[in-house]
């Protein structure tokens, strides 16, 4: 199996996971209960296919890290595949594959997420394995040393060696001066090198505890039997004792633009613009998601039509809304066409944004936008794995899993005027971060 695929702890993937929005109009039915140790369990039954998705969302991401030990949360995503007291080293992957299942994990600024999809007669096996991971994962020097190397390799492949791979790192460190969103999930290799085994143990005991996790199960399951198995394997795991560090830092509002140049191994210059977003659970989030689709979703979106097709200043413009728990970023990335300067591309993007702020959007564009959002909402729930993930995230970030059934309603409440209003309110030049990515080779010709 490709490890790159497996450990999608890298930035962009995590980011995309977070930006997936919306839910189907069809109601997602679910059952929920909480164990005495604080573990929240959500179950969704869908017997169409004899498979079951099992996932555990740990509410720990890079923002919970000690600023002197960045990269811990993501490192754990690797470490916790090493095995447990009862599961041998390397057996986690082997067992799941050997029963005909598949598994994956990723880390973001806010959470670490593990999931398996197994044939439904192996549901108990998957629950047992997740309980082992939560109860007594194997954290020893062999595992730590091995995974340090793997994480370094991952950083080389996904960030250092990837064109534009450092965007999030570069943006975050400028956009957040106080809040721990300042560093990216990959963190610092020096910090990981310096960390002792004790520190890793403490992190595990603090964050990998039932009262900091949501277990979600979706697919061909029997509610009663599933609940009984969950109790069998998870009830005996003790509640966490350590204090969970949840930063209560509000990033001060900036009134200055931050502007910089980054030289990278790229062929075409790029422009990155990042604007501050409100908290993930803000009522404006829905309007902002629609704004992002209007600007850069689909072939006929504003920036694609104007900047890519008509003016041919960019080969592509993408919007990447990073909607984080404590307030994320509205990110644009424009990659310049051959021979186009970054300045010129930036001007073209800004021109469209200010046109939108001044004139708003037309009725017909608004109708188009609603159709695109609706399509996105419906497609989100095409797999039991997707449903398990949505339910867990809704529970953690909105306080109730039923939020998945509210989203279409909330999108429908957004008006045309709201789109213009949020564009004016959030896409402000004062306080944004602008980065120009330039090829190293502009200096190295001949």
């Amino acid at each position: 199996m490709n490890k790159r695929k497996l450990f999608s702890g890298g930035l962009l993937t995590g980011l995309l996971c977070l930006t997936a929005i919306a839910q189907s109009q069809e109601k997602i039915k679910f059952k929920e209960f909480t164990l005495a140790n604080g573990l929240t369990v959500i179950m969704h039954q869908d017997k169409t296919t004899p498979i079951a998705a099992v996932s555990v969302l740990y509410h720990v991401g890079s923002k919970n890290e000690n600023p002197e030990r960045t990269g811990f949360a993501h490192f754990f995503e690797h470490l916790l595949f090493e095995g447990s007291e009862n599961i041998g080293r390397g057996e986690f992957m082997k067992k799941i594959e050997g029963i005909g299942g598949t598994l994956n994990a990723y880390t973001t600024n806010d959470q670490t997420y593990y999931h398996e999809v197994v044939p439904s007669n192996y549901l108990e096996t998957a629950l047992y394995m997740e309980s082992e991971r939560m109860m007594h994962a194997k954290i020893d020097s062999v595992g730590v040393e091995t995974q340090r190397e793997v994480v370094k390799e991952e950083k080389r492949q996904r960030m250092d060696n990837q064109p534009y791979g450092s965007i999030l790192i570069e943006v975050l460190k400028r956009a957040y001066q106080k809040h721990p969103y300042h560093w990216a999930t990959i963190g610092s290799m020096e910090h990981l090198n310096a960390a002792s085994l004790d520190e890793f143990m403490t992190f595990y005991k603090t964050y990998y505890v039932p009262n900091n996790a949501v277990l979600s199960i979706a697919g061909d399951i029997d509610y009663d039997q599933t609940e009984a198995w969950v109790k069998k394997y998870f009830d005996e795991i003790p509640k966490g004792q350590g204090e969970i560090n949840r930063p209560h830092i509000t990033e001060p509002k900036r009134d200055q633009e931050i502007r910089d140049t980054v030289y990278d191994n790229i062929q075409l210059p790029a422009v990155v613009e990042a604007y501050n977003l409100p908290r993930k659970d803000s009522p404006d989030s829905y309007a902002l998601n629609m704004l992002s689709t209007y600007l850069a979703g689909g072939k006929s979106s504003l920036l694609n039509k104007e900047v890519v097709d008509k003016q041919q200043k960019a080969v592509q413009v993408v919007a990447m809304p990073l909607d984080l728990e404590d307030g994320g970023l509205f990110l644009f990335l424009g990659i310049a066409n051959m021979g186009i300067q970054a300045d010129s591309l930036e001007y073209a993007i800004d021109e469209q944004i200010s046109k939108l702020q001044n004139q708003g959007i037309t009725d017909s564009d608004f109708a188009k936008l609603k159709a695109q959002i609706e399509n996105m909402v419906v497609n989100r729930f095409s797999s039991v794995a997707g449903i398990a993930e949505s339910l867990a995230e809704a529970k953690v970030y909105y306080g109730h899993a039923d939020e998945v059934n509210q989203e279409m309603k909330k999108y429908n409440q957004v008006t045309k005027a709201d789109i213009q209003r949020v564009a004016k309110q959030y896409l402000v030049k004062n306080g944004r971060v602008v980065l120009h990515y330039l090829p190293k080779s502009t200096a190295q010709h001949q």
Partner: protein
Amino acid sequence: MGLSYGQVDRSKYPEPGPAPEINIGNAETFTLANGLKVFVVENHKLPRVTYSLVLDRSPVYEGEKAGLTSFVGDMLMGGTQRRTKDELDEAIDRIGGSITFGSASASASSLTKYQDKLLTLFSDILLHPSFPQTELDKLKKQAISGLASEKDDPEAISDKVANVVLYGKDHPYGEFATEKTVANVQLTDVKTYYDTYFKPNIGYLAIVGDITKKEAEKLTNQYFGSWTKGDVKKIEWPVPAAPEKTNVVLVNRPTSVQSIVKVTYPLALKYNDPDALAAQVLNNILGGGSTGRLFLNLRERKGYTYGAYSTISPDKIVGNFDANASVRTEVTDSAIYQFLQELKRLDQNTITEEELASAKAVMSGRFGRSLEQPATIARFAINTELQELPQDYYKNYLKHLNEVSVAQLNSLAPKYSKPDNAYIVVVGNTDAFKDKLKPYGDIAYYTNTGEPEVKTAVQDASVTAEGVINNYLKALGGREKLQSVKSLKSVQEAEVQGMKITAALLVDQTKPVAVQTMKMGDQVLSKIIIHKDKATMEMKGQQKEAPAEMFQALKQTLTIFPELYYAANGAKVALDGIGKVNEEDAYKIIVTQPDGTKVVNYYSVSSGLKLKSTSTSIGEVEFGAYKDYNGVKLPIGSTINSPNMPVPLKMTVVEQEINPTLSVSDFE
């Protein structure tokens, strides 16, 4: 349930429940009067519907027009007789749907409530394309940029060269597009292709989602009923055989730090072959994933690579076996050895029951999970027709998979594991390992554009590396004359997509100092000042010191004729046969500096002049014609192919002077 558990036994895995019954839904089917065969898979879970069309045509040999079929899909999407491309894009987004076309396939999807609109657009594209010339011009331009970047993409090179050696350039599976063949493609070719192959009677349309058979019948008649049928000829293509003995095929890419190693051979294996399923089990054991032998050996035990895998691909004409990995340059030969060892071992009755059980679990799990997506059922229905499978093939898939035995695999192994009849294709820094590959078979060289490279040994024993370099210096004007060149000014221009780039270089060897200025139009992009110990870059008014590795490359500009100082600097030179540079015979000289950095230069056999220079830091530079400047010859043009640039840069000298009058301010 209220069950209570005592001590939970955590020492072993729980017993699984009884294996669930896997139900494979049925596809309903009907055929339109024009011959279009339709499959309907009803699934009302989500309010959406997908239409997928496949045309069952024989592979097409494109020859002088190679690249044509890659344009057909985008040309269809380029506009219809009623709608421009902009109007189409807009209308598709307006319903939040998606439509794509290929040369023998198409797909359209949307929410159910928009499906009338979706089908209006889909059938308009399918039945009334306008094929605008502007779209073809744009696509050809993009294709040529794509070919340029492929020249430096090791994976693309590896695939291209593997296909050439497997099937031959005169086979549809072996041919590939070049700048020349792309330029040959005309609008009439696209139209002729469309008129020949877009016929309903060779089409299979799968409709999946929130729809009933009755609705599907009504809608397909309404939107595709007027599509007119026509004869489409079947073409028989030869079935290439595996080579009689194993061959090594090398493509030199001096900038590589990894080698892409591929062991491949053609296989006469169709999807409906009785062996097909067992062959997949066999492959799974060898290289199917993280439990495959290749992965365990090359990655887990040896640490040569991030991953090593193999595939067996059946095909209606000719299938293939392919095992590959990207490995560190230094272990290229060891990795090849392990690949071949694993192929040999597969054929030595080594397969265990445990391996078989694990492969079956992986395959049946994948099969079971795939059924979650209703599109899978449609794919099964279409494959059954296209590949002429037994009607109950997918219904019995798991049963047949379960029946595969170790004995059966052992008896199949000799047929599918062919370490002695393979092509070993390696793309990498071949100078580092080519001598170690001789034991594996005869070596042939290919270029990064997929052409065989002609290279001959030097027959004349009196030719030495030192002699070639002396000849070169003589051809330029002689040592003495060249030593009198203390400074140089050279201004060159290139055009990149309509924009003019100017590069000016000033060198004063006596200081030594050099200045390199890059301009686009009138705007200065960068200015670099190079000294003996460091280089300063100025970009957009910001100054900074060049990083060490860049400085190593820049430092070379301080020496106008590096060949003059090879001996004095302790550089080692070695003659490595005669190669060709643009049809011209050239001596290949490998220069190794005392710090280990390598440059490979090619000097013309006839004129003695330098034709090409390649190195890891700069890439590849080809020199054009030379001109005399006061008794010293200098090139007046060059083509630079650097890993840092998306397309090759063709530079032309506009001004060049030796020992010009320079002032101090020139170097500030």
